């Protein structure tokens, strides 16, 4: 199953053309298992704003990289490569990408290992978070919380069991699946299958993100402006009434979720045009948020 490439397989179509060539240093089941447990027990413990899950990914890869790169300089270089920015859904996505990356790395195609990480992490973040949070968790936890409120201990127990078992199984399965499919992907790189998969996943990811951004990023303006209206008195004659109109209402009429989309576009523009360091983007958002929120002109949501 997840055994390394069998030599009895029909001629590997990618092998000879690859600049490095597939490694003959076999990755054993034991090594794969060590990677999985490293991922399982600690994937996000070093999560940070700058590179998010990068160190966790690199740490998990160490057993494999050590086998594949006996040369010290090559080993150090592989560690450096896997320390680049990485973030995806840790439950549905993380193990899949990890398994796929190992297969690519084993096949000696380090560039495709790097590019498959980048190509898969964003769509898997959107898909994985939606599956685990929006779909699965909301059902499991609302059932459990309902029972807990009635004083039924089965509520928490039910929820814990439905986290413990499926969450483990889905990660274990993905890891093996990613590794096996990763080998196939390398073999079919030239047939464009991976390109198709990447393209499909990218499209799915972009569509999901188009819906995600206005849902998750929350900002509204609490500003109002005065408007004079000539009202007709019931007994005849007219009077000028001053009315307060919320600006947010006008914005919603132009385009719903205009502000969340605008602020995301603004940061995207900063990152792209000026190649801004993410830390600076965070600092800028902190400053803008604290200023606008502190002044009371903008808020997370309109007061009800």
């Amino acid at each position, binding site marked *: 199953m997840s055994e390394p490439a069998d030599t009895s397989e029909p001629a590997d179509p990618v092998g000879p053309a690859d600049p490095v060539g597939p490694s003959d240093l076999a990755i054993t089941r034991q090594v794969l298992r060590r990677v999985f447990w490293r991922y399982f027990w600690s994937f996000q413990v070093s999560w940070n704003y700058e590179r998010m899950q990068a160190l966790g990914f690199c740490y998990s890869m160490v057993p494999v990289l050590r086998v594949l790169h006996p040369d010290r300089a090559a080993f150090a270089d592989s560690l450096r490569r896997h320390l680049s920015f990485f973030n995806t859904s840790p439950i549905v996505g993380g193990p899949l990408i990890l398994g796929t990356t190992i297969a690519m790395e084993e096949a000696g195609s380090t560039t495709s290992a790097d590019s498959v990480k980048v190509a898969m992490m964003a769509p898997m973040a959107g898909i994985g978070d939606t599956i685990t949070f929006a779909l699965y968790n909301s059902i499991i936890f609302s059932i459990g919380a309902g029972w807990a409120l009635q004083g039924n201990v089965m509520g928490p127990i039910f*929820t*814990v069991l439905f986290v413990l078992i499926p969450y483990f199984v889905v990660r274990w399965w993905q890891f093996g699946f990613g590794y096996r499919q990763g080998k196939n992907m390398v073999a079919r790189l030239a047939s464009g299958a991976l390109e198709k998969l990447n393209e499909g996943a990218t499209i799915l990811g972009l569509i999901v993100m*188009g819906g995600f951004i206005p849902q998750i990023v929350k900002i509204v303006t609490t500003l109002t402006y005065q408007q004079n209206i000539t009202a007709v008195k019931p007994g005849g004659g007219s009077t000028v009434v001053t009315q307060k109109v919320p600006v947010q209402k006008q914005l919603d009429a132009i385009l*719903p979720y205009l502000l969340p989309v605008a602020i995301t576009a603004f940061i995207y523009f900063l990152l792209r045009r000026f190649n801004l360091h993410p830390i600076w983007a965070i600092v800028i958002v902190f400053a803008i948020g*604290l200023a606008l929120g502190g002044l009371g002109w903008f808020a997370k949501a309109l007061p009800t």
Partner: protein
Amino acid sequence: MLIALALTLWAVVCIYDMLGPTLFYGTRPMVVGTVAGLIVGDLTLGMAVGGTLELTALGIYTYGGASTPDYITGAIVGTALGHVTPGDPGHQLAIGLTLGVAASLVLTPLDPIGRFLPTFWIHRADRAAMAGRTRELSVLHWTAFLPWAAVRAVPTFLATYFLNTSAVSAIERSVPNWFTNGMTLVGAILPAVGFAMLLKLLPVRRYWYMLLLGYVLFAFMKVTLVGVTLFGLAVAVIFVTLKPPTADRLTRTEGSSDNV
């Protein structure tokens, strides 16, 4: 003292569970509150505080690294302070919930600090990787968890050790109003950075209309995110199927001799 230490340890275990093994989903208030109830010796109160917070927070998850109200500390502090409040269970629950929600919100600004500090670790990790020092890499990886743990452990210990109801409300009062408002907005717009970073990695210029599609579905047609995802899946399949085959068909008819 012993109970305060046990609750503090529980807070650390919970955040570790979320970042690491996810055995019981340590950031969800129901599980957190139930065990906190067991620790203080009032299981029913713990389940009630945790369960209520759970339903309030349903659908609040951290996407792309956004800060959410700290329900771990909230559920623990709420349960512990509700337990020491004199009165009948109903009153204890009301007090516990008020203080639990207040603690979750007041402590939210600490979360970005816990997420920011490990950045210093990663720069040291770069140097360790460059030299191929894996032991140092491992130590850095695990110790980068300390800021995450500290921003929960310290407030939990302080709040539960000085077990009195006035402590939390005093903290709440001492924070100026404008700062709380500002930090609430910061927490609400910070996900934009994560999204922008992801967008930078994607071919937005080529497929900008796909973003637009998701936006229109959600913003104008009020389709839920599950709906948007399923629609996206269908579009992705249709798109790659209908796309005129380029090198793809050629290589397939030529069999395995597709080396370039």
